[in-house]
């Protein structure tokens, strides 16, 4: 273990993720992390990593990087193009892996294969399920792809699921997610997607405003456009698990798991089915959630988050979206996020999410299967606080 660990970060220069991690490294007395820009990874610039951990951070929120990933739908407000961007992203992850392999002493703190799975809901869902992680019931799958509104309604009828979440396979931050409720001949879609019709046909835009579509023609156009963009594998569709509702707000948790421990927890509460904080939703009250479900259910849920993270054993941290059911007894994992550590101001034992990662790296964390010192065990507890 070198005295002063030099961490390389692949990210977008100037982003608060980068400055946040750099501050945590400085606070721990580490040298300033070496930054490798995503745009250099994507543009094919010559790369090499110094010895030490290479931490892969999000390529998001950078218009130039989005354009390099983007292919035909480079407009960052467009929903479509997810499959194209995902393919470019996976190729870039492959490049990082190859550069790391060719850089003596460099090793990856986030596994490219793990990240690729986390960004493919069609693969992540069965992986979690196979590790006994409770997940909402999936209606789609290789044998029953959902590529259109007609296929969606057929699957909903077959599965007797009148309320579902429809998710683009590679979306993040609720982009393209549609909460669909059906009742007899009625249909209601709740989504942040804005559907527009122009000379070129239907176009979908991300917006910060939750919309409702009640006209079935519109809902069908929306789902058809999402389905066409998802490619032959289709959309990921899950039965709607009624979420814990506190004071009229649907509430779920983002649980950061670092080096196999649930560390930072944020509650997210919303009056709409989407709890994502960028959609105008508020951080909820974690102690209130904990009190509502009780210590036993809380501990089981935290154990579930750790088990979900264990599906990605070569990755230092993941952000688990944990849903408690409305009956307060059951829970399920909605998503596992590769870059789910942007939780500014949330502390665990005085450390923010980046400080926690630095702590684990300095403490000797290594990806599963690698040789090296084991992680220190000073604070192995199943649940935070």
């Amino acid at each position, binding site marked *: 273990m070198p005295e002063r660990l030099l961490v390389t970060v692949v990210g977008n220069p100037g982003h608060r993720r980068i400055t946040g991690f750099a501050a945590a490294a400085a606070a721990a007395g580490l040298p300033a992390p070496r930054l490798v820009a995503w745009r250099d990874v994507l543009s094919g610039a010559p790369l090499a990593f110094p010895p030490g951990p290479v931490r892969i951070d999000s390529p998001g929120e950078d218009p130039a990087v989005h354009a390099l990933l983007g292919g035909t739908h480079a407009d960052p407000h467009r929903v479509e193009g997810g499959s194209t961007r995902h393919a470019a992203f996976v190729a870039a992850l492959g490049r990082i892996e190859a550069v790391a392999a060719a850089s003596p002493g460099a090793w990856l703190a986030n596994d490219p294969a793990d990240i690729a799975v986390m960004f493919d809901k069609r693969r992540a869902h069965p992986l979690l399920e196979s590790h006994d992680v409770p997940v909402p019931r999936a209606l789609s799958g290789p044998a029953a792809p959902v590529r259109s509104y007609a296929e969606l309604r057929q699957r909903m009828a077959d599965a007797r699921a009148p309320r579902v979440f429809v998710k683009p396979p590679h979306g993040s931050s609720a982009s393209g997610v549609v909460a669909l*409720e059906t009742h*007899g001949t009625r249909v209601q879609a709740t989504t942040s997607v804005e559907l527009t019709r122009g000379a070129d046909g239907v176009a979908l835009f991300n917006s910060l405003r939750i919309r409702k579509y009640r006209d079935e023609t519109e809902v069908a156009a929306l789902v058809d456009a999402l389905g066409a963009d998802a490619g032959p594998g289709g959309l990921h569709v899950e039965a709607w698990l*009624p979420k814990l509702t506190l*004071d009229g707000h*649907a509430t779920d948790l983002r649980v950061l798991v670092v080096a196999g421990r649930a560390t930072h927890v944020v509650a997210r509460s919303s009056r709409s089915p989407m709890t994502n904080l960028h959609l105008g939703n508020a951080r909820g009250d974690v102690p209130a959630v904990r009190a509502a479900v009780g210590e036993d259910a809380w501990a089981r849920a935290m154990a579930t988050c750790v088990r979900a993270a264990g599906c990605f054993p070569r990755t230092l941290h993941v952000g688990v979206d944990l849903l408690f059911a*409305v009956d307060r007894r059951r829970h399920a994992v909605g998503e596992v996020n590769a870059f789910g550590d942007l939780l500014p101001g949330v502390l665990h034992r005085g450390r923010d999410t980046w400080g926690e990662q630095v702590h684990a790296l300095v403490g000797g964390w290594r990806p599963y299967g690698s040789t090296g010192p084991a992680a220190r065990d000073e604070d192995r507890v199943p649940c935070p606080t």
Partner: protein
Amino acid sequence: MTANHFQAFGGLPVEDVPGAGEPWPGTAELYAWRVRVLHDDETWSERFARFLDEVDGGAVRALLVGDWNAEYGDDSREAVAAIAAAADRLPNLAALFVGDIAYEECELSMIEHDDLTALPTAYPRLEELGVRGSWAWFAPYLRHTGLRTLTVEGCGLLDEMVRGIAAGDFPALTRVELWFGDHEHAVDAVTEVTELLRSHGLPALTHLGLRNCDRTDALAAALAVEPLTAQLRTIDLSMGTLSDAGAEALLSGQPLGHLESLDLTHHFLSTTMIKRVEAALPVGKLAKAEVDPKFEARFIEVRE
């Protein structure tokens, strides 16, 4: 906003009837019991039957019908029939709510009911009855001497419901609260409010809530002229779409000096009208008008 689960009901804290084999949180008299299922092995009716078998029914004072997996499109008929049939086992039931269901379980307008007449008929000692959802109604000429509070949180309130109350005989009923919603049927329900405000069967009524309505101005216009207004002490027009026209009707109609409070929360009044209303009516301090981010038409507060 969306509909809330009850934390307390009938003066008691709410507890769920536990699943089969799970421990009971306490004895029957301590809680308002909610029977609900969520993709459970037990159906709603099975859980309710076990509730009757496992608790001292004589000690049950408050009961809530929670989610019966309403999302699948079944209305509350089965639950209503089961409760009506159990009247001899729940002799002291004073408070009953049908549809304690939050948006995450089922959208308000998709929670369906049918004729609820069997409930007040089977429970003559009932003091509080509430229902959340759509398509609920009472047969006309219903008489109930015990009922003190009646609440219908609808979205698409049926005109039959308003007519049923207007044509009934409820000598003890002091509080009525109706949510109208923004669906087509509520339009008819709004016009029926005139009948309600001319009813001879509500001699004890002192509180009337006409809430969450997409035509609050029409309700205000009716309140401004119809006779029942004179006996009310509190009126609640909150969560709706009151505009200057409705407020003007209240200001220029029959005297309202007898009112203790008039709740206009969630309104669309101009600043000038806010000042006039605050000066003339017991509305307290009004917040600014609601603003829709897209400058749409006025909107009701609970629209799921």
